[in-house]
């Protein structure tokens, strides 16, 4: 490795990211890092996330200072071993920056894929597709209560390398029609079944998070073989407990001060909850019909503070492969929901992780999904 200089550049977290702020370094200059070790916290307009080092080495330079806002691809640091002279590093930085500023068009990477509207009965469903199918089976992503398709922002790019990836906003969420019917997982699954037909998707690997996990199970029950596999991330339906302080708080809190502690239930590392994230939720909840829809879902699915729909029998009856991913420190749905599942189910528990492993442990989740669905 002697003599190698590895540039550390501003990563692209999610499809929409064009620039990011270096929120903080996790490694001091001169510190040794392993590949995959968290090297810095990067803040975007949507999320703050730990950035993992692309290689092993000594962090010889922090080119970007904490607080710097930089485009995707800009140089933020230099990895090299101690044999590389400072002058060589200086020259590398100068050359990199010169080439980077001259090629600025490509720097921010590809634009975010356009959303499209798919009509399902009376509902308009907002869909965002990425990747292409390569003759394989597409991946369908189902978000949870109060979420939207941007919950998958750190997963779509990785999954899209090999698959056609379909993310969408559930009815009552995001940019889809704010009508939830009775708000039950069965009703959502019916809509998704029709959405698949509308998209001419006969079969899909289905990944569901939280309430989206319960919906995925209902979809598997209704559609059988059309669900090629199930990846359930902290799914509803496998236990009975639910953190109603989160559900009620999410529905009722309408100011940043009151909503922020509620949103913090979602993650283990509370610093991941940014102003922008909370602001986006407040803006979502202001839309006509949203709070009413969320109340209907909560009343139907979490009546009297318990999960109403036991879906373990559905999971046991499903014939395809199933994996369950769960954060050990989940404060919304206890990780105990992963206990006592059939031996055929692959269970992964992530330490120091909350209710959203797909965000908090995105690269591990992406690897787990890639290994599982091929």
């Amino acid at each position, binding site marked *: 490795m002697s003599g190698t200089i590895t540039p550390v550049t501003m990563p692209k977290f999610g499809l929409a990211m064009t620039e990011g702020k270096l929120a903080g370094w996790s490694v001091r200059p001169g510190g040794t890092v392993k590949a995959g070790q968290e090297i810095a916290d990067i803040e975007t307009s949507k999320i703050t996330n730990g950035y993992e080092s692309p290689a092993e080495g000594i962090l010889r330079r922090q080119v970007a200072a904490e607080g710097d806002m930089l485009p995707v691809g800009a140089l933020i640091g230099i990895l090299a071993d101690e044999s590389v002279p400072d002058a060589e590093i200086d020259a590398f930085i100068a050359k990199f920056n010169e080439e980077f500023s001259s090629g600025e068009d490509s720097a921010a990477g590809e634009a975010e894929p356009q959303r499209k509207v798919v009509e399902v009965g009376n509902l308009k469903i907002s869909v965002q597709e990425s990747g292409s199918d390569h003759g394989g089976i597409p991946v369908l992503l189902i978000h949870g209560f109060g979420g939207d398709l941007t919950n998958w922002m750190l997963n779509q790019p990785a999954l899209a390398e090999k698959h056609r990836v379909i993310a969408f906003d559930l009815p009552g969420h995001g*940019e889809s029609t*704010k009508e939830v019917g009775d708000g039950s997982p069965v009703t959502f699954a019916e809509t998704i079944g029709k959405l698949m037909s509308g998209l001419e998707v006969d079969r899909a690997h289905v990944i569901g998070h939280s309430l989206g996990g319960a919906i995925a199970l209902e979809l598997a029950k209704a559609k059988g073989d059309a669900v090629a596999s199930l990846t359930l991330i902290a799914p509803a339906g496998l236990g009975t407990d639910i953190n109603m302080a989160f559900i009620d708080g999410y529905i009722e809190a*309408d100011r940043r001060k009151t909503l922020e502690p509620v949103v913090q239930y979602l993650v283990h590392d509370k610093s991941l909850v940014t102003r922008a994230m909370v602001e986006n939720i407040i803006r979502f909840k*202001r839309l006509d019909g949203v709070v009413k829809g969320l109340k209907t879902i909560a009343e139907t699915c979490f009546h009297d503070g318990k999960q109403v729909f036991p879906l373990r029998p559905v999971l046991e009856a499903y014939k395809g492969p199933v994996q369950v991913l769960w954060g050990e420190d989940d404060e919304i749905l206890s990780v105990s929901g992963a206990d006592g599942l059939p031996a055929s189910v692959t269970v992964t528990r992530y330490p120091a992780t909350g209710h959203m492993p797909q965000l908090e442990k995105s690269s591990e989740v992406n690897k787990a999904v890639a290994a599982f669905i091929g």
Partner: protein
Amino acid sequence: MSKKSFRQAINEALRQEMRRDPRVILMGEDVAGGRGGTSGVKDAWGGVLGVTKGLLTEFGEDRVLDTPITEASYIGAAAGAAATGLRPVAELMFVDFVGCCLDQIMNQAAKFRYMFGGKARTPLVIRAMYGAGFNAAAQHSQALYPLFTHIPGLKVVVPSSPYEAKGLLIEAIRDDDPVIFLENKVMYDDEEEVPDDPYTIPFGEANLTREGDDVTIVAFGRMVKFANEAADRLEKDGISCTVIDPRTTSPLDTGTILDCVTDTGRLVIVDESSPRCNLATDVAALVAEEAFDALKAPIRRVCPPHTPVPFATALESLYVPSTEKIEAAVRSVASYKAKAEA
């Protein structure tokens, strides 16, 4: 979701509320344009700056009413229509023209609920353009929100961006009291992401566009943008600011202002209206009374001089509070040392 201008955001708010509720009507001089003329052209103007363009075509002449040039009559008619079951949105064009119809607003619409024992509802919205910077001279450039704020019974909205404008206007139309909705005329082409769906932003809830430790800046309408620009520059020098956009001057979110000043101990207020008896004096009085012990420096106000808005471009641009003036005011309070300490 897509980028929309301030103009489009307001047009969309009106359109969506007119679709949702048949009682919502528009009235005003040239809100469509062409009525009564001989050219045969309909919807010629859509408001002098094109804000209501296209609404006549969708909703027809029964709901988009071009009125004669007589503010006293159509503002009075709108107040009466509101009290008897419609939800009119009347456009006063330039807010300066309120001089022609102040009785209808101040003594009639604002007083109905009170004078009729709480039994009357007056869901009236009056939209008007305000502000200098358009080179429209002294009779078309005033920022008169303090005048309305002074009158109990009116709600007063001063939106600071396209996103804010759409949500606050829908809230105004659904409100059962008279609301004065003031649009800064040089902001119509400002753009930002605005949801396609209808949404509401509640009155009396200030928005913190940023949070900092050193100085609180309270700014109204267009001044919010200037305050944020100043705060961006100041941050590079290690001065961190909280910027408060009160959104509505009546009701005023006094709690948020006091909380923030208690945290930072320093206050700058940016108000585009004439400096005597304006919102800056009002907020300064509030903080002097309620948070005196928290203050580490005198309160500073950034306002225009007490003069009619000049027509000459060079003078007009000196008149309006600028990012530079805000920055200087913040620096002065941030570096302030009391005499006893100095």
